[in-house]
């Protein structure tokens, strides 16, 4: 279709909408934003007649590559270290994708611009595509990779696991609360525009370096839809900016959405890229370097900063602090260490780090060995059952962290811990911004203004509370993280499948009591709690030499 006829066709399609006079569409999902003064423009001239064949062609390429991967025995060269982390990643990501589809009517309800409704509805179909194509990729892994355990329980594990819950906010955040906060700022303006770069571009790059060329095939195909979604988000953002009353809400939501995305996505993708790879070439970009390129330069400098010309206050401080956490505060490394500490309640196996890894980490993140080296040596020492408990229950100088009430990643940058009594409960937060999110942003009033549509933090937010004071073997059994012999665990702190004696079973966990840090915190007196918090912040959590 020529450009001219595309414009004519698009103009024709815009004639399909009309101003209702008998009844107006139900507002199922409210917003505190106003769009009375908004200019109406649709930058996305998407016509279904060209959309469906385009996507079918993209699909054909993806499915052709899948066939080729099987015929070419791709799994002969896939690194298990890498694919094990896909058991976590691919259990999480189909839910955010389908949530993005479900979020579209929220944006349609909230934005009175028929011209953009078309683009949002197309995005809905895209997201169904993404969710199901990713589930299908995972099925291929399950069918063809040496160890299917963990893939086989995928969506159940996602729903009952601490890491799955961290990831779940990346989907629930799209579909709950104020329609614009959720479906526009959190989903499109921040998650899709900024963080899909690391999710869908940087990570597949690493997959290819580890022998897996199907992840790039599928995720680059997904990413090629994202540019249209970014246009949707930007249009709505500009419409919101047309009304001064929206400015405080936009600034609130940019702070929340930026920081939550950083906490959640950098934790997960940073770990997958840095700890899932065997590629230790010194000139290979580290996650920090990728982040600098994809998020700091491409998103922050090229997308966010220009919004200042509209008078919007950009959260510069939070962008800089995210960078500070990634580089100077070892955020990603602390998360990876936490995942590995908690290996018995995972549904994937985690390979230990070797001398080659140590050397690379020290080169990319100077000071890494002093902080983490001894701990990973202990992890390797304690990797087989029989003579020791799992590392979390052995004395290796690692204090199990408290969980952040807001982002649910533990409070790993210990000096930044915030402790506060909120809604009659003592809660811990990983940072001042996460504390602000719970105490200030997600409330029915913001800066003296009623915000009845803003969401609420709900649910059993501390995973450990559900399992407090129970036997670890019973917890793992109830979670379903047991292999088909009824006793061997799905998770293992190594990749050795060749000897049953090296594989941990429920018997090896029996007798270990599991405790919730938050329950314990709420049982403390004021003075005990203050003393504990001071000690928590002061503890560098370094494994002694």
């Amino acid at each position, binding site marked *: 279709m020529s450009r001219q006829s595309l414009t004519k066709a698009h103009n024709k399609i815009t004639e399909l909408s009309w101003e209702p006079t008998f*009844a107006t569409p139900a507002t199922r999902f409210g917003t505190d934003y106003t769009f009375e003064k908004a200019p109406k423009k649709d930058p996305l001239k998407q016509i279904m007649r060209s959309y469906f064949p385009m996507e079918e062609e993209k699909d054909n390429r993806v499915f052709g590559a899948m066939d080729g991967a099987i015929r070419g025995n791709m799994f002969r060269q896939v690194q298990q270290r890498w694919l094990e982390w896909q058991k976590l990643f691919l259990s999480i990501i189909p839910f955010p994708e389908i949530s993005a589809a479900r979020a579209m009517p929220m944006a349609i309800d909230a934005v009175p611009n028929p011209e953009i409704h078309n683009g949002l509805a197309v995005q809905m179909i895209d997201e169904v595509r993404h969710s199901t194509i990713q589930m299908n990729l995972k099925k291929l892994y399950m069918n063809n990779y040496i160890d299917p355990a963990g893939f086989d329980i995928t969506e159940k594990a996602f729903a009952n696991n601490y890491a799955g819950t961290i990831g779940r906010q990346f989907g629930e955040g799209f579909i709950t609360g104020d329609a614009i906060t959720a479906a526009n700022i959190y989903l499109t303006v921040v998650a899709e525009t900024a963080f899909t770069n690391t999710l869908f571009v940087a990570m597949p790059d690493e997959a290819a370096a580890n022998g897996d060329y199907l992840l790039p095939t599928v995720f680059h195909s997904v990413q090629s839809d994202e540019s249209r979604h970014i246009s949707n988000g930007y249009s709505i953002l500009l419409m919101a900016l047309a009304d001064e009353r929206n400015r405080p809400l936009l600034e609130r939501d940019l702070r929340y959405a930026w920081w939550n995305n950083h906490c959640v996505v950098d934790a997960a993708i940073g770990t997958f890229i840095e700890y899932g790879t065997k590629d230790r070439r010194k000139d290979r970009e580290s996650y920090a370097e990728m982040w600098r390129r994809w998020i700091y330069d491409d998103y922050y400098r090229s997308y966010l900063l220009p919004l200042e010309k509209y008078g919007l206050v950009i959260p510069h401080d939070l962008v800089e602090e995210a960078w500070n956490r990634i580089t100077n505060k070892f955020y990603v490394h602390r998360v990876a260490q936490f995942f590995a500490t908690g290996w018995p309640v995972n549904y994937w196996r985690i390979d230990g780090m070797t001398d080659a890894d140590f050397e690379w980490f020290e080169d990319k993140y100077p000071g890494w060995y002093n902080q983490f080296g001894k701990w990973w040596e202990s992890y390797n020492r304690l990797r087989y059952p029989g003579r020791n408990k799992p590392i979390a229950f052995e004395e290796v100088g690692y204090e199990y962290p408290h969980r952040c009430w807001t982002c649910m990643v533990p409070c790993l940058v210990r000096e930044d811990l915030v402790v506060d009594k909120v809604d009659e409960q003592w809660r811990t937060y990983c940072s001042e911004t996460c504390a602000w999110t719970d105490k200030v942003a997600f409330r029915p009033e913001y800066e003296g203004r009623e915000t009845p549509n803003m969401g609420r933090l709900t649910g059993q937010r501390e995973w450990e509370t559900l399992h407090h004071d129970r036997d670890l073997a019973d917890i793992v059994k109830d979670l379903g993280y047991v292999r088909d012999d009824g006793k061997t665990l799905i998770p293992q702190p190594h990749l050795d499948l060749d000897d049953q004696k090296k594989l941990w079973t429920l018997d090896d966990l029996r007798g270990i009591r599991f405790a919730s840090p938050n329950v314990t915190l709420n049982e403390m007196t004021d003075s005990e709690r203050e003393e504990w918090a001071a000690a928590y912040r002061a503890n560098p959590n370094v494994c002694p030499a």
Partner: protein
Amino acid sequence: MANSATSAPKVRSFPKVEFTDSEAGALEFPSSKSRTYNYFKPAKLRATVYEDVTVDVQPDPERHLSQGWIYGFGDGPGGYPQEWTAAKSSDWHAFLDPNEEWEQTIYRNNSAVVRQVSLCLENAKRAGAYGNWNAAWQKFIASNLGAWMHAENGMALHVFTSIQRSGPTNMINTAVAVNAAHKMRFAQDLALFNLDLSESLDTFDGSVHKQVWASAEEWQPTRKVVEELTAVGDWAELLFGTNVVFEQLVGQLFRSELVMQIAAKNGDYITPTIVGTGEHDYSRDLGYTRALFRLLTRDEQFGESNRELFGQWLAKWVPPCLDAAHALQPIWSQPAEKTLTFADSLGATKEKFSQLLEEIGLDVPKELEK
């Protein structure tokens, strides 16, 4: 020049391939053969691709979701509360889309339709097929098919796109999302057909559809029902009111019992090809709708209360849809070749509607006989 001659060649850096023997079957160990998603029970012995990629992707506190929904709305719980409809089910997850829609089916099927429509339109232009259209038929298509495309678009964006946020399972919401895609594509196909006709025929009024939809007497009750449907908050009522009642009594009446029947007699072999794709879509979409509401009427625990509820929905939506149908009666007289009467068309429509209600397990409402 000297510099370029002496500069060292750039050393390329690339990852090394390593053979890891990580194929299925390389070793035997516990779960080494566990190669099916094991957290749901498939409908048949083996799960279909559709089930594998759809079931449990939207978590549910009644199944595996242990921490509950971690975000809530300002005035209620988040996630997908079952209370968002008055209909009840003892197991919402029992619903599986009989069309088994997932991404491959969506693009394959809709691309096939796109190719069919495109070929049809190209051939029509090449053959000068519109030249045979008389003035009455041109006016009929410009006004009535033109008005109807608004209804299709309204349902796409404000009925089906809207519903797919609210259903309690991924299987329901995905089936409805595909329904939205059908409607959007069909509405656009009708609009672009209208554009083609405007460009091909000097006498074709390509803009009259807006005025007809907005104010022509015969179309106002139809527009009223569409707008009133979009105002319904209960997702299952919205689906029922649209796919079971409105689409049967008004959509099918217009598309299937009028346009498809009379176009050929009026020298038009193009319109039925395009409108037929909409009928094909509706047939698929009615398939999942029928399956869902049958499940609810046959529910051991809630079947009776659901049937009562659906009876109330019928009492609410059948009268305005019949009003809309009757208001359309004058357009049966507009074409030059009148091959069937409104009474014939409405009779056939009511018969299909009654059959559908019987399949769902509902009584034919007394309003239908009025």
